[in-house]
Structures are given as C-alpha cells and as structure tokens.
C-alpha cells in the first residue's frame, strides 16, 4: 500500500515539468475540441494521476480533471482534511471532496461550462461511474481518449529518467538485502522492505517465496516518486538442476532488448534457449508504466507492440518448478540503440552464485 514517503521536491521534478505534462494533454484536448479530460484512479492504479500532478491517492478513488485551458483540479472521496497535505505534495490548488465522483465532476464541469468531455482510458473506468457521468446535467458528449497519458509517460524526460534510475537502484538494493544467506522468507521480506522504505519508496511489493526445495526467489516491485521498477533474483540456485537453464533463458531474452523489441522476439529467444527443458515458463516485457499493475491494465494490442527507443521496460522470466513453486528473474532496462542500460545493475549476475553459463562464481 501507499504508505511510504510522498514528496514533491523541486530538485527532483524541476519547475514547469508537471505543467509541461499537463500542457501536453491540454494540447490534445484543444486539437480534439474537448473542454476537459478526466482521469480516473484508485489506490491500486493511479500512475497517470501521479504523473500529471504528483498527487498520491493513498486510499479510495479520485478523478483528476484537466481543462483545455487552466489548472487541473482533483475530485476525490478522501476527506477535505487531507487537502492541506495534498497541496503541499502536488501542483494542485483546486481540491474537491464528496461521496459521489460523478456529482463532483458534474459540478466542476458545470462551473467550467464544459459539455464535451474526454475520459482517459475510459475502458478501465468503472462502468457505473461512466453511466452516471453521462447523465450529469450539461454533458453533451463523452469520448474515450485512450492511453494518451500513459503513452507519453513511456517516453521519459531526462528528469524522469533520473527518477527511474534512482528507483531502479533502490529496487535492486532491496533485492540484494533480501538475498542474505540463512534467512527465512519473512526475514528476507522484512529486510527488503526496510531498504526500500528507508530509500524513500512510496509503495513496495516484496514477494519472497520458495523456489523448489533448495532455493528462494526475492522479487521487489517499488514506486519511487511515482515511477515503478522491478527486479528479482534467486537465492541458493547453485544447488539446483534448473538454475543454469533459467539463467541462460533469461540472458537469451535480455539479449533481444533493443529499440523496437517485441514480446514475440523475446519469447522466441527464450524458447530457443529453454527448448531442452520440460519445465513451464512465462516471459513478459513490461513498460515501466504497467509495472504498477503488473500489466493487468494492458490491452492485447499494447502487450505485443514494439518498445521504442528511450523507453524503460522490465524483463521478467518465471520458471515453473516440478513442485509447483516458481523461480523468477527480472530487471528494469533503459532501451537505447547505442547502449541499452540495465537500470537495476547493482544486482550482479542473474542467479545468485551462478552466471548465465551455469558456472559458479
């Protein structure tokens, strides 16, 4: 849950950066003749809202309203008592609370004189909320703006890249701390969580579990200033028969990562490498914008689309072991033609104690 540090630091997000992000969406609105856009978010899925405003919906649901001209406003179910904190940690001044988001939106749009409205990623909105909005007085038409915000997030600016780098290092460090020898998986999770939270992660998911009888997986997904990264390693794998195959399969997938890479190319490479194993496996290539939901809100089209130059994405390979458990390897990459960079590089090797050739080191 979002219970870690929430901060708005001008040294991290330069003045004008948030306004620039909002401005890009406003350009789209003006091009399409729309008076305003609404972006829905909840405590589990709110990356677009955070990107545009640095707001943290730490509980419940909310809408970010972006007019074609003028500053955005936040409409939420959280109490007005948190407004002062939200003003300190976001670029928002217009904050409105109430039990019904459609009514709040209706009032806001009426004040704005807006009758033509765009909903960002309308497909993922609660259907009842869309229906209620359609029946608000003065709303003439509602159009789906698709993933217009998420697509822009997938081309990070230099300052955004810096936050992704810092977040990646933190995620990697949390995995490293969780990999100590002779720890229970609860102890691994505690250590990883401590490092991530002390480093300023806002949200962290730590998955530590058995990988067969002799090994453990440590997987960390963290949010740092609104940017999500992932890393995973296996501890004690040198004692297993499958570790070499896992490492080689992962390296085969990683070798495909370059501008334009698709999940199909990565899958083919992993399949060729793991061809001789009869273990099940699953590989995924996840844009950093989809790490928050572990790709749960990604369309089929987005899942197979090429990943472009300058994107940050994660490679995750999961091996299904004979006892029903899994072993996972994952890293976060900055994809560039000249030098694809492993942002979680503080993690050495891909399997603790073993290199991709299956040799001990």
């Amino acid at each position, binding site marked *: 849950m979002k*219970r870690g540090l929430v901060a708005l630091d001008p040294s991290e997000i330069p003045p004008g950066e948030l306004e620039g992000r909002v401005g890009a969406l406003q350009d789209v609105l003006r091009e399409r003749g729309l008076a305003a856009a609404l972006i829905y978010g909840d405590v589990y899925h709110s990356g677009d809202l955070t990107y545009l405003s640095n707001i943290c919906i730490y509980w419940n649901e909310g809408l970010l309203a972006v007019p074609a001209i003028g500053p955005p406003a936040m409409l939420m179910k959280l*109490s007005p008592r948190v407004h002062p904190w939200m003003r300190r940690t976001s670029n928002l001044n217009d904050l409105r609370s109430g039990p019904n988001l459609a009514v709040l939106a209706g009032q806001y749009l009426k004040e704005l004189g807006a009758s033509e409205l765009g909903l960002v990623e309308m497909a993922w909105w609660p259907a009842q909320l869309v229906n209620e909005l359609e029946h608000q007085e003065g709303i003439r038409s509602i159009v789906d703006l698709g993933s217009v915000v998420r697509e822009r997030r997938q081309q990070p600016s230099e300052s955004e890249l810096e936050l992704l780098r810092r977040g990646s290092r933190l995620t990697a460090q949390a995995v490293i701390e969780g990999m100590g020898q002779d720890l229970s998986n609860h*102890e691994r999770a505690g250590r990883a969580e401590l490092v991530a939270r002390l480093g300023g992660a806002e949200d962290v998911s730590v998955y530590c579990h058995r990988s067969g009888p002799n090994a453990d997986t440590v997987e960390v997904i963290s949010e740092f200033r609104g940017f999500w990264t992932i890393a995973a390693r296996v501890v004690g794998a040198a004692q297993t028969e499958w570790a070499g195959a896992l490492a080689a399969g992962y390296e085969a997938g990683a070798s495909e990562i370059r501008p334009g890479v698709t999940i199909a190319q990565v899958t083919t490479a992993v399949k060729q490498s793991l061809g001789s194993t009869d273990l099940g496996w699953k590989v995924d290539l996840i844009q950093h914008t989809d790490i928050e939901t*572990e790709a*749960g809100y990604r369309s089929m089209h987005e899942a197979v689309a090429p990943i472009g130059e300058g994107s940050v994405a994660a490679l995750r390979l*999961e091996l299904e072991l004979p006892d029903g458990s899994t072993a996972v390897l994952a890293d976060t990459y900055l994809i560039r033609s000249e030098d694809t960079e492993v942002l979680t590089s503080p993690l050495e090797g891909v399997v603790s104690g073993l290199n991709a050739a299956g040799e001990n080191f």
Partner: protein
Amino acid sequence: MTTDLDWRLSRVRQAMDGAGLDGILMFAPGWRRENVRYLTGALFRGAFAFAYLPRVGAPTAFVGNSADARATGEIGRVKDVKVIDFPHIDDIAWVIQEHLASSGTLGIAHLELLPKVLLEPLSRALGGTRIISATRLMDEVRLIKSDWELEQIRRAGVVCSVGWRAFVEALHPGVREFEIVAAVEAELKRMGAQDNFMLLASGGDEVMGMTPPGVRELQPGDMVRTELTPQLDGYYAQICRSAVLGEPSEGQRKSFDLFNEAVEAGLAVVRAGVTAGDIARAENDVFRAHGYGEYTTSQYTRVRGHGHGLHPDEFPALLEDNDTVLDENAVIIVHPNTYTPLAGYHVLGDPVVVKQNGYEPLLSVERILFSSPI
C-alpha cells in the same frame, strides 16, 4: 460436521435468498479483494479476480494468472479455478449461464468498481439477466466472523501489537516520518504480515489529521499518532495510538484522558444487539460532556470506529445515525479519533470482538499515552 466454508456458503446463500438473487459474482479489483477472498481464501497478485456462487452448486474462481490459480488451489476451498485472459470474460459468462436462467437475477459484489471493458461484454453475454449490486449484501455477510476467522484476526492482533512496539522504538528526535514507517513495515513483514494500512502524523496541536509520511523530522514534545493495520493471511487488525517524544504536556495529557474516556464509554456499551450508532453516541457524549462536541462532526473526523476483517475498513461505520445492529462475533474497532485544540489530532482505539454480554479485546497493547525518551 460443518466446515468453515460450509458456514460461509450458508451465510451467503441465506443473504441471496433474502435479496432474491439466483447467483452472486464477486469482483476483486486490486484494492478491494475481500469478497473473493471470503470465498476462496486466496491472496491474489493479479489486477483482477472473480468468484461465482450459484444458488445451488459449487463455487468457481476466475483469476488472471497461474500463480493466483496455484494460490487458490493450495487453499482448496474452491476446486474449480479458471485462468482467464482479462479483459476476455467469456468463461465467466458461460459458467454463470450454466446455472442461471436468462430471466434470473445476478448480484455483483463491487459492481460499482467493475470496469466498463469487463461489465459491458458480461451484460451482453447474459442477455436478459437482471444485474444488481451485491456489495452491501456481502458487507453484511462478512460482518459476523466464523470461529476460524476470529482466530486469524486474533493472530493479526498479535502482529499489530508487535508493530506498535516497533513504532514506539523508532521514535527519536531527528528521525523522519518515513523512516518510522520503514521500521514498522520491516518488523511487520518479518512477522509474516502480507500488507499493512498505515497513516501517521507528527507535531503539535496544529495537526488536523493523518496522511502518508513526509520528510518532517521529529522534535522533542511532538505527539506522533498512527493507525496501523497489518494483514496476516488475509485478515487485518488495527491499532490506534499516540506517543509523545519526551514528557507529555498538560494539553497532551488532558487530550489522552478525554480520548481514553471516550474509548471506554464506547466499549462499555458494546455487546450483541447494540447498534453502531449506540457506540458512536456513547463516544461522542463524552466529548459533548467536556465541551468538545463540535469536534465529533465531519469537519474534524470521519467515523468513531468501523468494522475490519478481510478489509481494513469494513462495514459498519460507527456513526450516530447508523442503526446497523451488531450481532455476536462482529469485529469492530472503537476509535474516537479527531482533532481538538487540546493537543491537535489524537488517535486512540482498540479492536474487539462483539460478544453476547460485552466484548473480547484483540490487542495486548496497554491503552496509555506512550512517552519515548529523548
């Protein structure tokens, strides 16, 4: 012998009878998984999960990945587990159609949160089936806990108590708010907690409420307030406490006395058959008697407590106008948390199990104004 699952299914079906439902579909988005957990017992990782229970017949679970299918299978309460490729929900529609006539009524728990991309194809596939919300129905079903559920919440209460001790140990001048959270989170995870809902606030009488942590450094004399809610094997238990760095001021002591009296007044009326409003009124009467009645309103506070279990903030809200009757084995936290000018926002509260003639406390942490040495 009736199993815990039989008991749950019986409660759900009794409620379905009362509401005229022919089937119930429970929807679990990432942040509201309690109803699907109620049926399956599983902790999910995927963004979505569903569970379907027909009027007659076995339940079916629908999950988005093989890990969630394994987790559901290992618990073993629901035997029929299908992995589906969201947003394609044909399998869900087919299973429902097997049991439910097209003229039937389907209840959906968390219908209000079901995305358009999932609800519209489901509605189309189910043709003339009447679809209504079953969110409140499931809130009421989950209100009364089974013996097994109570045992899980008691275990979560133990972790909660440990978490509070870690919180107090982390309080030192110069420590930043988010570092306190880090220390508590690490301890809770080390104890096996899967999750935790936690808010805090530090400072003096200017503090109006709690939020996620910032970079503020603790100062001598600060009161640090927290509501922490670890989850163990799916079940949450909550504690509300405040601690002072150094010796508490007179205002902080008076504030504690006021809040403690309100908690005791609330707990004093807890027994099977009282309403949520009765408890809230007892708490608020204490504030009114001391001249602080205005601080019990929504301008300063949200609720005077609430239920918890598979969700950290469950039905019913303890509010004076809530006439929900609390039966034996409901789990609630009594917390009159609010702002007063005495010492700013103050939090104090204990979770309890409602019993026939009173209540069973769930925490071992004493109810005092904690003081950390400086």
